[in-house]
């Protein structure tokens, strides 16, 4: 990618922070745990960095470091996503008559 200057990157960072605060403040308390695991999943984007490092590594040292980063980042992405999906699936409004568990 074209290299951006530090100041432009910093500008993007600050704008992203404001955007983040804006969007997150609309999330209801009820969904704060899924929010946390969902953002957990999003910081799994670090996997892109792991791919860049491991995919460009020449010597053994870099390969090892890149490989470990790759494992950690993948676990982050995959685990974060599945756990969030599992949780959000449980949030239901009034159960529909059809899927109510049988009463004893």
């Amino acid at each position, binding site marked *: *990618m074209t290299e951006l200057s530090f100041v432009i990157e910093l500008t993007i*960072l600050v704008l*992203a922070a404001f955007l983040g605060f804006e969007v*997150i403040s609309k999330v209801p308390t009820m969904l704060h745990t899924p929010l946390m695991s969902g953002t957990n999943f999003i910081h*799994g984007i670090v996997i892109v960095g792991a791919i860049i490092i491991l995919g460009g590594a020449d010597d053994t040292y870099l390969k090892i470091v890149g490989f470990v980063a790759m494992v950690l980042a993948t676990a982050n992405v995959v685990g974060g996503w599945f756990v969030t999906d599992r949780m959000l699936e449980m949030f239901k409004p009034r159960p529909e008559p059809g899927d109510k568990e049988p009463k004893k």
Partner: protein
Amino acid sequence: MIDNPDLTGLLYLAAIICFVLALRFLSSPKHARRGNWLGGVGMIIAIATALLQEGIKNWVLIVIGAAIGTAVGVVGARKVKMTAMPQMVALFNGVGGGAAALIALAEFDELGGETTWDEGLSIALSALIGAISFAGSMIAFAKLQELIRGRPIVFPGQNYVNIAVLAAASAIGIAIVAGLEEQWAIVAVIVLALMFGVMFVLPIGGADMPVVISLLNAFTGIAVSATGFVLNSTVLIVSGMLVGASGTLLTLLMAKAMNRSVTNVIFGAFGQVQAGVGQARADDGRTVRATSADDVAVQLSFARKVIVVPGYGMAVAQAQHDVRQLADLLEEKGVDVRYAIHPVAGRMPGHMNVLLAEANVPYTQLSEMDEINPEFPQTDVALVIGANDVTNPAARTDTSSPIYGMPILDVDKAASIIVMKRSMNPGFAGIDNELYLDPKTTMLFGDAKESVLKLISAVKAT
């Protein structure tokens, strides 16, 4: 292969849009799940874009690494119990931070240590914050999983040692910014940051975990954002910062809900304060009144409105499913049943909502503190199950109490209060609860699950 930098940039932008929308969709449980799927799409776009860049090699290692990570992630995510969600979140938090620190380590090596000041700054920050987040999250995980003592672990002069370690790590980081090229420097930053991460979470008690987990969440986000600066990757900068903002916001919310500052949580080692302060004056003639399941069942069955106040004790006893069943029975009898959720109920923000959702409680029955508090005066019975400090009226009146000023659920305003509790042991804050001495309060002692089961059969009989 993608060899056009503009196309690469656009694809990453698409990923960013997906992530922002995913968070936007979390504003309601109705479409939150769809949002997560959209986030997944964004991630796939980003990963594919990274893999398709020219000159990517070591495919075998990439595939093996991804396979191991996927296996760990899927198994972990599938197996975890909802009560264990906080430690799972801590774990995934940690691995993200660890990856960020490792990328900084690798990049410093690749540059041969020759960095401009801004590269040096990004590398140092990514290593420092990433490593703190990794180590801190692992300790938080171990504490929540009860691999190590959940109670505060303290030694004299701890805060000074912590500050010294952090200062040393920062000093070496500054040296890197100033142009230090030695490889040991970045290793030293990471090692010191790992030490700090361990030591800063060790003294923090179980009840403060919601704050700590939120804080670590913010750390990892910021570390990933710093990694974005290292690699000149906007998608990392933006996504990392979104997480940083979210974690920061949650940290502040949690601290506010406990009426404590973030610094106080980190340096204050709760549980130190107790003993003596805010002791319920048991000798002033008021005593605790115990009751039986049958009496409670009658009270509940003939109530118009019941508010259930669940706490972590309910989750520990795995009683949420039975509580739901009890609530269903009461509803069939025409009782209006609601759940009052305090922001710090559970071990992480919103934890109680997840536990109740798992037990199939419709989210329309769950009410936040500010929403439900005005309803307590019109409530016949407040049923407190395994909650303690969040119901303690001392938080309103007793200035000497450690929890003074903490927003609480106005349980004491209900016509009558039933507290289900294992024993008279004080809660996490280590203080007695005035509520138990209230003449309107009766106590139903015993394991929460067993008590609820007894209540269910008693309600069926009435």
